[in-house]
């Protein structure tokens, strides 16, 4: 069960999107959230939808995986769309009852908001589906580098990031083990009233904190024994490379922006 959680949602593959530089994918998925604010009529939303669909086709990953990304937010989406449909007036009124009005304006707005949710989620799912966690960590580190100018501790942060990523699976296993050990001694997780449930957590959390602490101490000792003296002045083993396809991707997003500005 835990295996799926550890690695994020990454699905190995060899499409054009998989081979892009992770920095480009990261930046462009930020950028996409920005340009979606430009969309304000049906042409722009349709265009963005088509663009997203083309991007999804290029990944060669089944659409089902993308739809799964929408699921955690489904209640927020339905609630938002419903509120928009029922309480915004304007345009032709189809049906009304007190303050509740279903109008053409409301329906159209509801559809737009639904599209906005789905497109944003699809794009960020695309990023996590096509990029291995470690490359993403490298990309984040590389993009944080300019912050060194304002004395932001880039190396320390990058190191913490890789340590955290490396130990998520280990701690996940550890949590399961401690839970099973406590279950074997009679603790019921998620049973009884709220206070009993809370009490059950106690024998889980403290061992977790203590074992993380011990692990960290061992790790630090081992790092220092291997000559770690702080972030500055070290070389890199994993190097990211920027290619033609990355430039083309940026160009494509620039074109999309231009088209959006024209269509709106």
């Amino acid at each position, binding site marked *: 069960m835990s295996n799926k959680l550890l690695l*994020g*949602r990454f699905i190995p593959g060899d499409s054009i999107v998989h081979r892009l530089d992770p920095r480009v994918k990261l930046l462009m*998925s*930020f950028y996409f*959230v920005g340009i979606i604010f430009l969309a304000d009529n049906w042409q722009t939303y349709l265009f963005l939808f088509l663009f997203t669909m083309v991007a999804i086709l290029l990944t060669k990953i089944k659409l089902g995986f993308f739809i799964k990304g929408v699921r*955690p*937010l489904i209640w*927020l989406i339905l*609630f*938002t769309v419903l509120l*928009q449909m029922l*309480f915004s007036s304007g345009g032709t009124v189809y049906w009304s009852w007190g303050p509740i009005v279903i109008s053409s304006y409301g329906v159209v707005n509801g559809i737009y*908001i639904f599209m906005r949710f789905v497109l*944003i*989620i699809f794009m*960020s*799912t695309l990023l*996590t*589906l096509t990029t291995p*966690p470690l490359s*993403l*960590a490298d990309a*984040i580190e590389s993009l944080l580098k300019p912050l060194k100018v*304002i*004395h*932001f*501790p880039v190396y*320390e*942060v990058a*190191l*913490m*990031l*890789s*340590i*955290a*990523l*490396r*130990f*998520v699976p*280990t*701690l996940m296993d550890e949590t399961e083990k401690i839970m099973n050990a406590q279950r074997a001694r009679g603790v019921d997780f*998620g049973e009884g009233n*709220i206070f009993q*449930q*809370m009490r*059950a*957590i*106690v024998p*889980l*959390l*403290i061992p977790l*904190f*203590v074992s*993380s*602490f011990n692990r*960290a*101490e061992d790790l*630090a000792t081992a*790092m220092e024994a291997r000559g770690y003296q*702080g972030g500055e002045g070290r070389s890199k083993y994993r190097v990211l490379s920027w290619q033609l396809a990355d430039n083309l991707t940026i160009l494509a997003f620039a074109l999309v922006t231009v088209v959006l500005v024209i269509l709106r």
Partner: protein
Amino acid sequence: MKVALTGKRLSARSIAILGLLMALQLVLGKFPVFGIWSVRVDFVFLATFIMGWWFGPWWAGLAAVICDLVNTLILGGSGTYFVGFTISAFLGGVIYGVFFYRQNMSWWRVIMATLIIMLVVNVFLNTLWLTILYKTPFWGILPIRILKDLILTPIQVLLVYWLGTNRNMLSLRDRL
């Protein structure tokens, strides 16, 4: 100036401990172990609290930011990356740091810190981000979120106080 912006330099040991606490924060986000109705409680706030308590506002805020990045960008949390939620995460870490770093634990402190985080970060800011990002009607979802946080606040207060006065945790802090 440099000190003000970056805090104290961290030793390899502190970096490792913060990294492990971040991993723990991510793991705790995946184990919502108990809940009432559909309000699930996760224990992410406890890891943030420990970071604030042991390392102070600056590093706790920073670590919370990294956790937010990892959670949304790498592990694929719900929705998308949005800078607003990163700001919220940062503020959460900073508030815990301001209230607990080199301070004695007291009920008053725990209640104030929890309330401020709940009201400012969860109720106000996060609702605002949802409004900006998805055009979710602010006043429409606010009552629901307030209700949820009203239930969670006493639970968080109890757990933070209990963890902050736990003998094992105190001895770990002394080993820092």
